[in-house]
């Protein structure tokens, strides 16, 4: 008995689906207009989530290149900016030595990241300069971790003062009339240096537009004395990273004379860094998706409106259907199908549009900005979820008009003109 009912219902759903399709085709223009809200909304949601997810994936892979056994130490920032730039109490070489002597630390690499003025060919522009440590352990560690590779020329040697290497993007720096080449001379904060090498593309847009030189060289150019922006510590294999973090914190607190929980520095594992960046991205994506949802809600209201109009226009038709044996539930189902269909067709178009949009952003980002951080990613959950969601929006938006249609009395509906 139950089985027969289920199969009957199944058959009806199939038939009503065909009826709904026929009706939507009959009112092509209006169906399209109704779907606009839904598909813009779905397109926005799909592209935002796919780009957000893609960025997260990219950042994750960038940082996981750093390895999870690394610890990053920075002074607490007063404002946003490159690490250490606005620190009230920057890290120093003494801090470096304390960290290096901490239990479980195998080696440390120090880095400076500074905005500098570059002059070349009568043009002036500003870029970040990053440094390599002047000791071979630290330097090798950094090069290996960030996978820096030379494309043309050579790396700078330890101790070289007026030699630099530049990121891939300088090969086609838009500010300049021609690309920079190995052997070109330019000046950093008015001090002349020579390019000895050009890095292969790193995939990180920041690095690709940075110039690199030795730490001591940059210190001399901008009179930095002994402040340090970032210290990266490599833990020895057998040590527990969290334990080493605590040790470093304790030693630095003692040395810098600050109390626990009032530290003016941050000690993070690369794992923590990834997850905090991931959290920020998630929040940003969520806010944007929330805004896109408004479009979907507006789309839903559009469907409700269209379906109310359809009920009014087709009152007579509903009357006829009831006269020839349609039950309230049949009428309800037919109208729900129609609004659900409006939703899901809008959803399908929206998903296609969203995929196209985020792929376009990805390609533009890769070509124009040289950024590989912006990559679109489409997990199946996103696609299926978006379609399901759009169907639900359609069906829910159509519920109230469908109930109104179902409740019409046969004779009243028939007498409508």
């Amino acid at each position, binding site marked *: 008995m139950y089985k027969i009912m289920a199969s009957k219902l199944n058959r009806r759903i199939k038939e009503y689906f065909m009826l709904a399709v*026929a009706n939507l085709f009959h009112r092509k223009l209006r169906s399209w207009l109704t779907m606009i809200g839904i598909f813009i909304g779905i397109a926005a949601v799909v592209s935002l989530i796919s780009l957000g997810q893609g960025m997260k994936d990219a950042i994750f892979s960038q940082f996981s290149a750093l390895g999870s056994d690394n610890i990053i130490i920075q002074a607490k920032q007063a404002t946003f900016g490159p690490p250490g730039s606005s620190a009230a109490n920057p890290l120093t070489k003494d801090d470096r030595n304390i960290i290096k002597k901490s239990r479980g630390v195998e080696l440390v690499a120090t880095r400076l990241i500074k905005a500098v003025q570059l002059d070349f060919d009568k043009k002036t522009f500003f870029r970040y300069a990053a440094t390599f440590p002047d000791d071979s352990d630290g330097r090798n560690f950094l090069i290996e971790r960030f996978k820096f590779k030379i494309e043309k020329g050579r790396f700078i040697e330890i101790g070289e003062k007026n030699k630099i290497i530049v990121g891939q993007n300088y090969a086609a720096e838009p500010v300049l009339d021609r690309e920079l080449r190995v052997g070109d001379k330019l000046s950093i904060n008015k001090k002349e240096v020579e390019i000895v090498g050009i890095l292969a593309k790193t995939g990180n847009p920041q690095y690709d537009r940075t110039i690199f030189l030795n730490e001591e060289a940059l210190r001399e150019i901008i009179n930095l004395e002994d402040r340090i922006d970032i210290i990266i510590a490599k833990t020895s294999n057998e040590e527990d990273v969290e334990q080493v973090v605590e040790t470093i914190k304790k030693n630095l607190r003692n040395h810098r004379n600050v109390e626990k929980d009032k530290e003016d520095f941050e000690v993070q594992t690369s794992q923590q860094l990834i997850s905090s960046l991931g959290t920020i991205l998630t929040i940003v994506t969520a806010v944007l998706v929330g805004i896109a949802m408004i479009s979907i809600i507006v789309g839903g209201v559009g469907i409700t409106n269209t379906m109310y109009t359809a009920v009014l226009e087709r009152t007579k038709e509903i009357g006829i259907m009831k006269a020839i044996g*349609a039950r*309230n539930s049949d009428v309800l189902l037919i109208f729900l199908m129609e609004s659900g269909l409006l939703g899901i067709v809008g959803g399908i178009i929206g998903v296609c549009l969203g995929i196209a949009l985020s792929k376009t952003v990805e390609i533009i980002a890769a070509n124009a900005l040289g950024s590989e951080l912006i990559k679109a990613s489409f997990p199946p959950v996103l696609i299926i979820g978006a379609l399901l969601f759009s169907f639900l929006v359609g069906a829910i938006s159509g519920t109230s008009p469908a109930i109104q249609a179902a409740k019409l009395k046969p004779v009243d509906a028939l007498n409508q003109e």
Partner: protein
Amino acid sequence: MPETIIELNNVWKTYYMGNNEVHALQGISLKVKKGEFVAIMGPSGSGKSTAMNMIGCLDVPSKGEVYLSGKDIMNMSESNLAQVRGRKIGFIFQKFNLINTLTAKENVILPMILQDMTKQERELKAYEILKLVDLTDRMNHRPNELSGGQQQRVAIARSMAMNPEVILADEPTGNLDSKSGSTVISFLKKLHKEKGTTIVMVTHDEHIAHNAERIEYIKDGKIEKVKHNK
């Protein structure tokens, strides 16, 4: 003694228009027995259509009872009544009332869908009926591509879809010229004769009414007189 299919017993229908009460039906009683051909006549506004709506269970009385195959329709659930109506009663209206988005064949098939007939059964049946009303060459046309007479023949075909016991026709020739009108009547007569279908038909035309075995005259919402033909 043939069984009674539909019975109206002292049925009243009152419409309220602001402070005005319109008594469309004022205690009408009427029995339709299996196999009968009944005509209903009466002046405009006398309550013929209202009575037909009661007979077809499209409306419920303000007072009195309507029995469908002996069951009081007030005791039937909405979905049950709709299903029974779909199976037992076929409707033909003055204004054809076809669904404009569907083709002639689809219009004929719709009642079968609502009764869960399988696809093969439906296709076969629809073709058979459309052949009966001589419309197989027009079955994929939509109503607006058909003449009034053809549309009414589609409506007849649709009313026959479930082999109903009763066909209710409210002025089926009202919108047709006399030639198409007589074709429609001849189909109804054929149905009555060959299949034994019960027919209740409202008409203004005394001549057409004489095709029926019995004529019920309505005036002011009541049966005024009954005339038996032959």
